[in-house]
């Protein structure tokens, strides 16, 4: 196959749990001795290729969010290498990361610049974003005046219209009313059909099966199984039953 678009190589991430604020203060200057830690990811390695759709399943606290945060570039690993070759759009927390005083339009540009897009390109996709978000004249109002539904719509519209190379989707995504939800689902399906790499996080086995041919099962920060979704889900179910 072609070159992988996402590579995780022996990635580990440990959260340090400070005993109290004093310990935290001390950690600014000295390495803490034997701190309590929580290993969110433990020696995780995998490769995802262009055009693949991969599901990530696991219970709460399995490290799914940490993994996604690393792919989107918000969090960083302690050790190991992560390579992401392309634009990442994350449908995780849609209302986050807006500058409240800026208008919707200005926020489109802000987001675009963060993703490393050029003025010209943003200008091209601007109208389709506004149209998709159904914001109308509100696009030139400060984002703080938006309702939470409008913010979500704008967040969603920006992320899906930048023609991402990787789309990260959390199944528990809330985007407002039923008709817009349908529109979003269709848009995601279009993106998948267009051959974008998709990472799909879910607790729901059937929806993973529907979208992703391949799945990764995470448990306590370790990859238990990585393979065809059918088999992964079997292992996942078995692990659930054991509990």
């Amino acid at each position, binding site marked *: 196959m072609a070159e992988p678009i996402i590579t995780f190589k022996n990635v580990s991430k440990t959260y340090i749990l400070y005993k109290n604020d004093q310990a935290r203060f001390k950690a*600014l200057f000295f390495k803490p001795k034997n701190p309590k*830690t929580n290993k969110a990811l433990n020696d995780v390695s995998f490769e995802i290729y262009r055009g693949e759709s991969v599901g990530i399943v696991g219970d709460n606290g399995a490290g799914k969010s940490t993994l996604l945060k690393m792919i989107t570039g*918000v969090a960083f690993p302690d050790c190991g290498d992560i390579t992401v070759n392309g634009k990442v759009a994350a449908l995780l*927390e849609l209302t*986050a990361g807006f500058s*409240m005083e800026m208008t919707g339009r200005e926020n489109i540009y802000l987001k675009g610049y963060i993703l490393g897009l050029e003025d010209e390109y943003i200008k091209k996709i601007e109208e389709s974003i506004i149209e998709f978000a159904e914001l109308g004249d509100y696009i030139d109002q400060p984002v703080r005046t938006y309702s939470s539904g409008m913010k979500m719509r704008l967040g969603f519209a920006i992320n899906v219209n930048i023609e991402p190379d990787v789309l990260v989707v959390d199944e528990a995504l809330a985007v407002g009313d039923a008709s817009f939800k349908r529109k979003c689902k269709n848009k995601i399906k279009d993106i998948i059909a267009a051959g974008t790499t998709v990472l799909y996080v879910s607790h729901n086995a059937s929806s993973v099966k529907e979208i992703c041919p391949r799945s990764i099962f995470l448990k306590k920060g370790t990859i238990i199984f990585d393979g065809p979704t059918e088999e992964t889900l079997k292992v996942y179910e078995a692990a659930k039953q054991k509990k």
Partner: protein
Amino acid sequence: MFVCRKHSFCDYFSHSANINGQGGIPLFTIFNEHKGFGKQIFLLAKNELIKTYKGAVIGPLWAVVKPAFTIFVYWFAFSCGIKTLKAVNINLGGLEPFSTDFFTFMFIGIIPWFFIQDSITQGAKTLRTNRQFITKVKFPVSTILTYTGLSRLFVHLFLIAIMYVYVIFKVGVSWYNLQFFFYCPLMFMFFLALSWSTAPMSAFSKDFESLVVSIMSGVFWLSGIMYDSYGFEGPLKYVMLFNPINFFVNGYRNCFLYNRPFFEYKTELLIFLAEFLVIFFLGIFNYNRLRKKLPDVL
């Protein structure tokens, strides 16, 4: 590739993760984060100003009213209350001491102080108050410090404009006024570099933030704003040179009051430049050290 040591921080200073071209040579992390983001920084700075002053009836005028009141209070206390302070004699190393009235002396010194005070206390808090850009989305984090600093600089320039009107009538125009364009950018850079250290550390530990704020409440009286920092005898005279705030306060007076070139007092200039280098590299070091831990602690 490097091997993860057991129970380790996996190397405190590692920059192994290479996501979308971030990382690279640690020295240039901050520089790279700013590259191509200039227009956005200005836009965000503008919005920072709107955020500060919106919803108030006189809006941006508060940027003047607050310092004006502070100046009035100090002038009242020192010139009317403690009646001895009407004129200040400054020893600039010349034959005759330079003499001026207290209000002019204080006015020119306190304007940079307002900027310095805000830069240090607000600068330390900035990452905590803008955490949505750190924990939720990928963002060039060091630019947060730049755009908030820039919004303070706008206010500073506004105050300088007002002060300059006073200077024109009271002291007169001089070529030395142009030295402002040396001191002001230098001041901006110095306190920006300082915030590369203080802001991530304050985000990490609230105690550090409180420490900075507490120290700042006293630093005013340790700096030569109400008095002449050159006016000490013996070793204290040299100790005062190590306070970078004095460098700027005296620098602004060089521009607008003393009409003295910035390189005349070489010891002061050299000590400051040495401190600037230390703060600059310490800032880069601290920022790189803590940058990747910020999303975890905020």
